[in-house]
């Protein structure tokens, strides 16, 4: 398969784009090498948290809604880990942060406003979480 093609040593890369890239590269490679351990640790933490999620779902927190809050809190934490570390959102460019912020607002808006459909604070009617 492709493994059999011997790859060129990195710094022989050429061409306009490639030269510019090679220029940045030595800095990049060191930077990346430092992170490999972080990636492995985060992976292990995520798998442990999966087990925690499963375990917590069998604990009676008094009401099912409380189980929801706990479960979603753990899931959100996991998602933040994936986003910040694996997807490099930590230290990402402001352009990307800006439109992700708006996406987040709209998703939450969509959730909350459709929730209003079942929970009406004016008349106080409400559906319970089942």
């Amino acid at each position: 398969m492709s493994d059999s093609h011997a790859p060129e040593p990195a710094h022989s890369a050429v061409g306009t784009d490639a030269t510019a890239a090679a220029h940045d590269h030595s800095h990049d490679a060191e930077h990346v090498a430092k992170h490999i351990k972080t990636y492995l640790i985060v992976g292990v933490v995520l798998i442990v948290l999966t087990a925690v999620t499963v375990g917590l779902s069998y604990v009676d927190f008094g009401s099912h809604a409380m189980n929801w809050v706990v479960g979603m809190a753990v899931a959100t934490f996991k998602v933040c880990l994936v986003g910040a570390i694996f997807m490099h959102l930590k230290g990402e460019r402001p352009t990307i942060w800006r439109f992700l912020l708006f996406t987040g607002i709209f998703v939450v808006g969509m959730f909350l406003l459709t929730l209003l459909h079942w929970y009406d604070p004016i008349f106080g009617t409400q559906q319970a979480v089942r």
Partner: protein
Amino acid sequence: MAAITSPHAHEGDAHLHAHDDDHHELGFWQKYIFSTDHKVIGIQYGLTGLAFLFFGFCLMLVMRWQLANPGQAVPMIGGALQSIFGTAAFAASETGAPGMLTADGYNAFGAMHGTIMVFFGIVPIAFAAFGNFVVPLQIGAPDMTFPKINMASYWCFFISCIFMLISFFVPGGAAKSGWTSYPPLAGIADSAFLTFWNGQTLWLTGMVFNITASLLGSVNFIATIIQLRAPGMTWMRLPFFVWAQFVTAFLLLLAFPPLEAAGIFQLMDRVAGTSFFMPTGLVVNGNVAPWAGGGSPLLWQHLFWFLAHPEVYVLILPGIGMVAEVIANNTRKPIYGYKAMVGAIFVLAFLSFVVWAHHMYMTGMGAAVAAFFQTTTIMISIPSVILLTALMITLWGGSIRFTVPMLFAAAFLPMFGIGGLTGIPLAFNATDLYLHDTYYVIAHFHYVVAPGTIFAIFAGIYYWYPKATGRQLNELLGQIHFFASLIFINVLFMPMFLQGMAGMHRRWYDGGAQYEQLSKAVVLGHTGLEWNTVISTAAYLLCLAQVPFIFNFFWSMKFGKKIGRNPWDSTTVEWDAPSPPGHGNFDKPISVHRGPYEYSVPGADADFTPQTDPPANSKAPDQDANTNSQSVEKQH
């Protein structure tokens, strides 16, 4: 394999041609059909969109005949219509003449008129066609960032067009549940026919493809505007049209996916027998429907309108963008309040995501939701008014050139104003309960999109046609087109306000003939029914008014007046490219030195200073270009 010495060296001989397009003349198919050039794709979108716009218009003409002359066969072409669309849509009238629109046919034509006009006519033209053609040129880019994805977008759109067209010819005819496709009606519609081969399922499949095309397109637009701006083209030097397209692309990007989710839900309902939108105990034709139940039709409405309200701004924002370009160019003045307008479209876009349920006041949703959406809906009129006012003030004191694009752009302002202001009663819960689903609503949103956006589109076509073809559209034919359209479109839509306030419901198949009160309600000397005839006549005449345009469009390609690069004496960058621009757009490096609308600058040589003109005083360094180059150095 051997080590490579240069990026342009051919490794092996496998893909010899792939590397150097420049030396290689593309064949007809690659150049005009499966092209990755943004200009060709823009023109493809434009032609397909115009064809659908006309097709959707013709569907409406048939419906208008039925409304004005209920139960009568369509004259002259009735027989042909019946043989084309089949007996599901047309039948013989009482007198035996073939070609009377049936109730099912009326519903199908109505649903498809809405779908086609919105998703296959205006969005492809205003957003995809003009966006593709004009945006890269205006920001001084060689092409879109992802040319192949751009091509994929068009062909996805093309597939969705095929689905929509085929659906007219399947058993039972095209989708009949309105362009909003409300369940449970849409869920049970056509269930007598094959699961995949019926109008409603094809409609949903077509929409899924259409949405995919829009998503691919909008990713491309945003990335292009962020990444490929020419040196010196800072954000506040972008022409307003580019801003409008930028915001529109975000609306499409973020609002369309929930509709895709809803479309998938409805497809599951129709194909896999689920009951996302089927309530418990639904009774169809006297029998309990064969579904598990537990779903909610309101879920569809929430997801649908989450898209469809931002969609309204998808329709109007590119229109406002085009009008702003044309007005600035023809008043020979900078746009008044450029920054305020840019801010206004962002606020507009943001608010458009939180107003959707004002389409749902009649569903009996809670008072809290209604109060919330009523408030946001009223708030959204503020940025709209800022936009309109800024454009109006731009006219003030300008030495206006009444070219054909300017005529359309000038007419856009009051027309859009009427459309917008008549929306306010609909935003209020209490008045909406009365006006909901009447012809008042029809008149309101048609004023926004027909004499609004479509006039803006015409302005855009007359304005950028020379860039696309190298020839100008005929001025006289354009004026005939404009004045006839302006008169008839108002005679067409204005009486609908009166009919609506008299209580005429938007889905009456016979134009209200069966309803006593409408035939007696006299408005301005005519009963509601008599107005139907007036409106329909105006519609036929409006169709006639398009003939000069269609003729002009094709005739001028060959025989129009030849023009140079900048026939309108415009400042923006697209006019620096040859007309028509070649592959890669510009024949010289582009760098931008000033804002987009430097018209009539005191002390300048001409009454316009192109964005690419270097600063007159070379000792005063251009501030922004300087900062830009510094930041480049810092990166290295």
